């Protein structure tokens, strides 16, 4: 933050007195609540609307820094799309021994139904969120890929609207790249992938699991920004392998769907038969090319923890390039050297299982007891292929307003990319901030909040 590109902003912030800052922070929270910019938290009795706490001190990214991130995200999206096309067609990367075949073919998110199917522009991941952290050397690194239904972009846009209302004096003349054309770009991508049979005026829709989904606000936001109906499974029917929505005038065709329902729940005939959320027969319509789905079916295989480790090798394999944004150094314990290194440095590393139950079974070396480390060692030796290890990343901090004081807090960053025929990265992203002192956890369920992310215009 002490960099030259933030000097003017720091100066202006310093000129606003503290009571004024506090008052503005309170205004924002009330406004977010009144506007219902909330996510649902399920308590014992019922669902409660909560706002994502909003920190008024923006995070600022220089034009140069952003150019680097933009290129890195594009490279990553391109690679994952090439990977998905490959594994659902020739499976060269598996045959060439770059990735162990069982990691892909035995992955619960691999959809054999997709093998051999061609989809428009060979784009599988149309909407992607990449979780980035910054290490102690200031290097951005990829922590995780979200290539299924990444959430949070609505906060990026709404946070900006909020800042524009509360801090016009801070933002004036700074040259902040706008974020409010996200909906427009998303709709363009949906049009680009619509079946040719739809003609010049394809009908888009956003498919949501419904008002009780925790991200329902985001679904509303995106549907409204695109100007398409927000539908639920019960609003759609499939007849003769075509998808229709139920309107006041009977059935009307739908051509392109941004679906916020996971593969498993999308079509009870093709996938989980118990699901009531989806649309029976939609997979057949998709297979026949009568409807486009974003993201495509079966993208989950590209964003899980096991495959993540191989993305730098994929970039080399498909593009013959080095990763622009490196991964967090990750050791794949199925590889003997990596296993040995992990065993030798257990007390310094984070050991994560790669199985579906992500989040569970993580051992954080520096904080683990002797017994926990021994337990981890036993499990590693019993099933090394199920584990990866990473150094503890010392997340960077940003100045943050906490209880009326400004203190450093850890942050991460999730940029969002949209891909139709080509890729566009929203200049900004969701900055999540750990509001509790000392914690590295930025999740909203653990007291995390968000900040507006300002990407500066290139004025050179």
């Amino acid at each position: 933050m002490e960099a030259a590109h933030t000097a003017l902003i720091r100066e202006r912030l310093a000129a606003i007195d503290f009571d004024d800052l506090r008052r503005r922070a309170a205004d924002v929270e009330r406004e977010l609540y009144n506007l219902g910019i909330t996510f649902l938290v399920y308590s014992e009795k019922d669902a409660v609307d909560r706002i994502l706490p909003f920190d008024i001190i923006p995070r600022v990214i220089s034009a140069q820094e952003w150019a680097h991130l933009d290129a890195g995200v594009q490279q990553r999206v391109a690679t994952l799309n090439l990977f998905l096309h490959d594994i659902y067609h020739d499976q060269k990367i598996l045959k060439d021994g770059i990735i162990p075949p069982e990691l892909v073919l035995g992955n619960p998110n691999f959809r054999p139904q997709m093998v051999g199917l061609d989809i428009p522009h060979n784009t599988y991941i149309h909407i992607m969120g990449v979780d980035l952290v910054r290490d102690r050397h200031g290097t951005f690194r990829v922590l995780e890929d979200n290539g299924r239904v990444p959430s949070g972009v609505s906060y990026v846009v709404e946070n900006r609207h909020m800042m524009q209302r509360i801090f016009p004096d801070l933002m004036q003349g700074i040259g902040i790249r706008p974020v409010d054309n996200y909906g427009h770009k998303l709709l363009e991508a949906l049009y680009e992938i619509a079946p040719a049979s739809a003609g010049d005026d394809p009908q888009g829709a956003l498919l949501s699991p419904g008002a009780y989904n925790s991200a329902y606000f985001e679904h509303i936001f995106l549907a409204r920004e695109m100007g398409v109906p927000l539908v639920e499974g019960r609003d759609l029917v499939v007849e003769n392998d075509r998808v229709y929505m139920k309107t006041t005038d009977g059935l009307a065709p739908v051509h392109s769907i941004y679906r916020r329902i996971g593969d498993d729940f999308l079509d009870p005939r093709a996938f989980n038969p118990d699901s009531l959320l989806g649309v029976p027969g939609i997979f057949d319509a998709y297979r026949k090319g009568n409807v486009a789905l974003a993201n495509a079916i079966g993208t989950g295989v590209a964003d899980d923890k096991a495959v993540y480790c191989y993305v730098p090798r994929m970039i080399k394999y498909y593009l013959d390039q080095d990763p622009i944004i490196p991964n967090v150094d990750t050791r794949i314990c199925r590889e003997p050297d990596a296993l040995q290194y992990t065993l030798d440095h257990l007390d310094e590393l984070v050991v994560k299982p790669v199985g579906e139950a992500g989040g569970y079974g993580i051992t954080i070396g520096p904080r683990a007891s002797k017994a926990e480390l021994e337990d981890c060692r036993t499990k590693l030796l019993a099933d090394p292929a199920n584990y990866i290890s990473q150094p503890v990343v010392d997340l960077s901090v940003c100045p943050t307003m906490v209880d009326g004081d400004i203190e450093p807090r850890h942050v991460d960053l999730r940029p969002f990319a949209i891909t139709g025929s080509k890729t566009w990265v929203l200049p900004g992203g969701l900055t999540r901030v750990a509001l509790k002192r000392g914690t590295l956890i930025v999740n909203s369920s653990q007291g995390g909040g968000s900040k507006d992310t300002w990407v500066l215009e290139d004025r050179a």
Partner: protein
Amino acid sequence: MNLLARYAECIFWMARYMERAENLARILDVQETFARDSKGDINWLSIVQLYADETAFFERHSEATAETVIQFYVLDPQNTSSLTSMIRAARENARILRPWISTEMWTQINVFYNKLLELKPKDVTARGLGRICAWIKEECQTHTGITEGTFYRDQGWYFYQMGKYIERADQTTRLLDIKYHTLVPTVGDAPPDGSTLDVSQWCTVLRSAAGYHAFRRVYPRGMSPATVAGFMLFNEGFPRSVVMCVRQIDGFLTRLRSRYSLRRGAAAMESVDELLGALLSRPIEAVIREGLHDYLDWVQRQLILITSEIGQAFFGLEPPAPPAVEAPATSQSGGQSQSQGDGQGQSQTQAAVP
């Protein structure tokens, strides 16, 4: 763009719940005089009877006092016809409709509901009731005004208006219906200007429908059951008269079908025409002579029929199941059927009020 059937249904019910809440606030507000019995005591039970809520009420309270009735109708979340429940239902529909309605509409309902939730039982007493009701009426009218000023005029607007006017017509018939037997003591021999008590009761009915001053303008002298009932049923200028509401429904339904070339809704059209024809064909004297209650009951049943026909034509609803069979809960998410589906059922129970 075609309007999603589910959205049309949500818009229709959002409008109805807001209108219904406003009317309940009106009735509670004038309760003080509204429910005096012949001895001049306030009969709080009469409100419960008005909404045919005796069973639900006495499951929760042993006695109908100012305190229990007010709690039951203002804050009680378990009473589906409390103000809190109705505004919650309106807000649930508005939440589903957020991609379709204006931000201003949503924000106002959302803030309104959140403020309602902040009310504590101690804020809602007989003494404070007037203030609370005035506030609720004002919020409901703010909703109406914001909607008028910001809601995009496409199909959704027509469904909103139809919902509002069907509910309004229904509420006006209810207001008349609860008082018809005290006000029209014996068929055929109603006194031309009524007793003192009757006049005050009629005034109250008019005030609860915001019609007192308008009535006075039309009838500067004399207030009789026939003039008041005739005004509330047939006056062409009174915004809450049944004729005015049904004319509006007729107009919106016709324009909806012609402007958007919707092929459906012929049955609803016919029922509206029939209702309007009936309303215009008989003078109030004849209606009273032949029985006001039966007449109001018929109007209410006709409104329920129209609602059901609109549902079948535009919301993709099935025709009502045969009476012997319980209608299955077809809705996938419980919340929505709660916010919409029971509206009709509620009207039917209400229609049974003697």
